[in-house]
């Protein structure tokens, strides 16, 4: 890749990056604001939105150099992470009948 030729693409990439930055700043403002206003549901919702925005924004930005091998790796990782968190939690709540805590 010649640094000079894809200057245009770079500019576009940076623009995307600044948009993501703006979204993150807004998102954090929203999360903290909701927390200060004692709206727990809103805090959780805003946090989720912020996370999704960060992950997907980052994902789309890094598509520049990303190829199928890596996408597959990340799908597997995401799946395993879900499994780790979900199954431990289900195992925790799934008590045999008559268990006393």
């Amino acid at each position, binding site marked *: 890749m010649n640094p000079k030729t894809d200057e245009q693409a770079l500019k576009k990439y940076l623009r995307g990056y600044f948009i993501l930055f703006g979204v993150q700043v807004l998102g954090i403002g929203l999360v903290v604001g909701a927390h200060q206003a004692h709206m727990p549901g809103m805090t959780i919702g805003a946090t989720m939105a912020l996370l999704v925005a960060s992950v997907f924004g980052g994902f789309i930005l890094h598509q520049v150099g990303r190829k199928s091998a890596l996408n597959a*790796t990340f799908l597997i990782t995401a799946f*395993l992470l879900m*499994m780790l968190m979900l*199954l431990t939690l*289900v*195992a925790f709540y*799934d008590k*045999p009948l008559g*268990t006393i805590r």
Partner: protein
Amino acid sequence: MEAVAHAAPHHHTGGHGHEHHHHDPGFWRTYVFSTDHKVVGIQYGVTALLFMLLGFSLMMLMRWSIAYPGQVIPVVGPLLENIFGTDMAARGIMSADLYNSFGAMHGTIMVFLAVVPLATGAFGNYVMPLQIGAPDMAFPRLNMASYHLYFWGGLVLLASFFLPGGSAKSGWTSYSPLATFADGHLINGQTFWIMGMALLITSSLLGSVNIITTIIQMRAPGLTWMRLPFFVWAQFVTAFLLLLAFPPLEAAAFMQLSDNLFGSSVFLPTGLVINGQPAAVSGGGNPLLWQHLFWFLAHPEVYVLILPAMGIVGEIIANNTRKPLWGYKTLVYAVFALGFLSFIVWAHHMYLTGMGTSISTFFQTTTMLISIPSVIILTCLLMSLWGGSIRFNTPMLFALAFLPMFAVGGLTGLPLGFSFSDMHLHDTYYVIAHFHYVVAPGTIFALFAGVYFWFPKATGRMMNEFWGRVHFWLSLIFMNALFLPMFQQGMAGMLRRMYNGGATYAATDTEVGLPASILHLNVNISHAAWFLGIAQIPFIINFFWSIRHGQKVTSDNPWHATTLDWQTPTPPPHGNFIGEVAVHRGPYDYSLPGQQSDFAPQNKA
């Protein structure tokens, strides 16, 4: 990466003298701080074999305590007293504490310091880049770092033997709260165990990143994915298991470290009582959390142990039957399925922790599912033998023995995968027999096969065939004499991890317990273990003797193999291949009709 930065100026100056200078880096850079994947592989191999001998020696001592509890250990007893002190081995008698610390370290050493480094570190490093036609690993310096981290992790674990109170004693599983309270000292064997494991995990992380990157990026032109030798596929999936399964254990290890050093309660429940006293901790933690995070690693780890072994067996069977592997694509898909499923079966180690029925059912189902790809792989390897004109040399004997031995280990695992039968068998010698059949006459036989098979490539000399066969037959006999009776003991209800081999629970006239016939098996098993130790002497001598005095190979390809690892000079020089490598055919073109020779190397147009 770094090597390029150094090599680039050489190209600009263009002098051959510079190149030569680059190739003669002196003793330290050649043997200790080498970045050459072959040297790193041999470093891994020799270190791991030594650790394996150590792990086995610990077990031979423990077998004395099991067979003859409370009796002075002959020959080495006084030595143990000198090394470990009178608390641990008074008058040369193994104490329960010493037994526990040996037991924990036997497991840790065998899994993390011997078998995995040998399978992925040694064979993965030495053979895999050769098989894909690469000049080296993708990150040579990282490769060196991962060996050194492994080595230091091993030293930390070894050093823990000499701490006051001895090494970790809570089993290789290090379950909390036992692991936190097993020792009174603040800096104790468990702390060292965690530190050592952190180094080992980092090492395997760097190693697996390196292996995957190398396979993705450095395949020779024409070596498409479905032309990769089966061994490379096995390494690829293994590296993914190491990459993704190890970190949760690292996280858990940090939290256990916090419990041990800072008095936190991540794994310590409310109302914990230690030695009749309420423990001075906040409580509120969850001991099962440790087990979840530990087995999230440790079950995939089982497949880390077995997959490279299957890869080695596949290579040797194809080569010595002079036939392509039967169902190559099926094998590849089965390895992937195995790797993937291995992540979601972990709680079948925890049926007795009060898990509910629905989650038990889930894990039973996935556990039964995972036997399907395992059986597919074994069937493909078995079918590959059909109609072949088999060469029975030492590597092939070991590879052939792998098949029934692994089958015994695998099939005896099914009753452990069902929660109802596991209730009875859990934590008995049945479990010990099951997983040792998978790992000892299974994986370790495959690793021996690999050592005999690739020895001529690495050294230019063959290992002695006669003594190889002696080693094989004696090992086979004593492995089975060692592990087969354990099934019987386990089914009779004999628990593992008892320093006196279950004598506590012996039947008496008035009490139901373990019958004398079952307890007497302990003596037979111990004898088998010691004879198995003696059976390794031919291998040890053969290995070191053959490096200098073995029969010289007459060609670069003594086994007439097709894969690229045999198309290099012997031993391969720095950079591996002379000239460009291009691949034109699949990995196992043996016995092609209408050809003069019975094999066609992958780089033959």
